[in-house]
């Protein structure tokens, strides 16, 4: 019987010939990511009583969660991190002018196929889009890895999700993953590795695959994974000089489940308050008034996301009742959007272009909500209180749907804006 990607890579990283599902193995990650929480982690690291981190070259720290600092406390938090990376000789530190961790790590070549990447952020699953085994962990665990280079992981079962059919007009990777989460539920893939495959995934851009793997976390998955191909290898080519070895599931690997979706008849999808699995077709919630629209975050802040938004908004003005905030996922995306004239179109339509970062996604700053307000966002979470106010509502959708809705001031079927 063949092995899955998850079984093969955890065997490789634990130095074992063979491992079985459910087994607990000790592994050495190739990269360990933390962001603004690196300050708290450095405090825990010092509690351990070790002076120096064991593998400074494996530590990656982008600042993104509250950049630039909104208050003195955030500023102090960043200062602690800058001093720590200096003291420890951590070279892979990316200050506030770089972008969101889940965009920055791939861009800087830290998420190669066949590598093991752990991060103190639940959406670390994003890097599976490049064929890495990437999972979220907690702060103490990162501190412990800084000290020892090792951690325990349980070998997960794998669910294979085949996505077939022709992508209908107005439907994007975000709609597909929202539909799947709505179908399987918030714990539909709890503890499991999720392997996305099928024609739709093969035809999908690298950015779209990142959206799928990013949101695998919202159905409880340990990792998301897409088998590397020419497209992802090409994307990485200019970003690393390191050698890597692709690891993929054997043709006769045993999956816990194989789930087939044909998305040919899918319409744009919306995740309604206050859970990500509360997903409805846009026709059910059309007309819901919105106060704020957000395009960006680690889920949908890439160039193709900004491009589709500007295509929809081109030559039009957003509703006077809506604030449209645009957060490019990284400075690389920002620069490309400037070059391509995307920002010009967005600004002419009434959008506010923000700096790369997480923005108000987790309720820290740059556009938090007031009681009674509604936000339609391209982010990955809509929990109560998520955007800073428990009496506000957050709906989730694709960048295209958010752009279209900002024109009308209400949740809108993007297909009415497409030729």
């Amino acid at each position: 019987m063949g092995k899955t990607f998850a079984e093969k890579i955890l065997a490789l990283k634990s130095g074992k010939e063979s491992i079985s599902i459910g087994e607990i193995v000790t592994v050495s990650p190739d990269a360990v990511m933390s962001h603004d929480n690196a300050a708290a982690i450095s405090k825990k690291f010092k509690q351990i009583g070790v002076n120096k981190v064991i593998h400074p070259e494996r530590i990656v720290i982008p600042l993104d969660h509250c950049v630039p600092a909104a208050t003195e406390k955030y500023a102090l938090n960043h200062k602690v991190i800058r001093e720590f990376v200096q003291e420890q000789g951590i070279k892979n530190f990316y200050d506030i002018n770089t972008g969101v961790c889940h965009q920055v790590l791939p861009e800087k070549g830290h998420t190669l196929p066949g590598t093991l990447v752990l991060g103190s952020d639940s959406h670390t699953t994003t890097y599976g889009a490049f064929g890495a085994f990437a999972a979220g962990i907690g702060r103490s665990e990162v501190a412990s890895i800084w000290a020892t280079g090792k951690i325990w992981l349980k070998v997960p079962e794998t669910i294979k999700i085949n996505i077939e059919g022709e992508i209908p007009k107005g439907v994007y990777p975000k709609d597909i993953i929202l539909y799947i989460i709505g179908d399987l539920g918030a714990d539909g893939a709890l503890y499991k590795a999720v392997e996305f495959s099928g024609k739709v995934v093969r035809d999908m851009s690298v950015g779209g695959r990142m959206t799928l793997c990013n949101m695998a976390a919202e159905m409880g998955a340990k990792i998301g994974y897409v088998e590397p191909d020419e497209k992802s290898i090409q994307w990485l080519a200019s970003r690393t000089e390191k050698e890597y070895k692709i690891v993929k599931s054997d043709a006769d690997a045993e999956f816990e489940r194989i789930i087939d979706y044909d998305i040919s008849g899918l319409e744009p999808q919306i995740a309604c308050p206050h859970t990500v699995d509360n997903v409805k077709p846009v026709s059910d919630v059309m007309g819901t008034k919105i106060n704020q629209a957000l395009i960006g975050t680690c889920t949908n802040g890439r160039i193709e996301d900004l491009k589709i938004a500007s295509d929809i908004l081109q030559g039009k003005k957003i509703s006077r009742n809506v604030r449209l905030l645009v957060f490019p996922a990284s400075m690389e995306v920002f620069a490309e959007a400037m070059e391509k004239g995307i920002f010009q179109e967005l600004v002419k339509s009434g959008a506010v272009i923000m700096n790369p970062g997480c923005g108000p996604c987790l309720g820290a700053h740059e556009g938090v909500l007031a009681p009674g307000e509604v936000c339609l966002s391209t982010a990955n979470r809509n929990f109560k209180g998520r955007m800073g106010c428990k009496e506000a509502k957050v709906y989730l959708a694709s960048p295209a749907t958010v752009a279209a809705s900002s024109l009308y001031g209400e949740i809108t079927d993007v297909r009415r804006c497409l030729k």
Partner: protein
Amino acid sequence: MIIKGKVWKYGDNVNTDVIFPGKYTYTITEPEEMAKHALEDLDSNFTKEVKKGDVIVAGRNFGCGSSREQAATCLKYAGVGAIVAKSFARIFFRNSINQGLLVIQCKEAVENISSDEIITIDFEKGKLSCKKGIFNFPPLSESVLGILNDGGLIPHTRRILGIK
């Protein structure tokens, strides 16, 4: 270890944002201060009335969402003796163990426990006693128990590295 306390019962998918709101994640650094905001957006009575040793009993996927460790820390420092759930989100489960907070997966017990009743948990024996009877739950794996017995991951790491 024996835990005896009052039950605070909640439903499925209790997420980390309602356990410990994201807006506090970089501004509150002390565990005692975190405890004052435990379950703030889910149950405003919780921090006012919770007593040391009380038990949270919940449905599926407890602690889903963010990786924030404060979600486990705030509950531990609020006095929670254990969390019994039908299932746990994986990062929350790890964070709880790493903070030395007992987590017990037992669907049958959850279905038979009512809010406000007093229950007793014998962690070593894997037994939970409530009004409707006694329920058994499986032990944690040895490596995970090792972390819990050392009082969490930081003290565990110190022990492994031989730091006194």
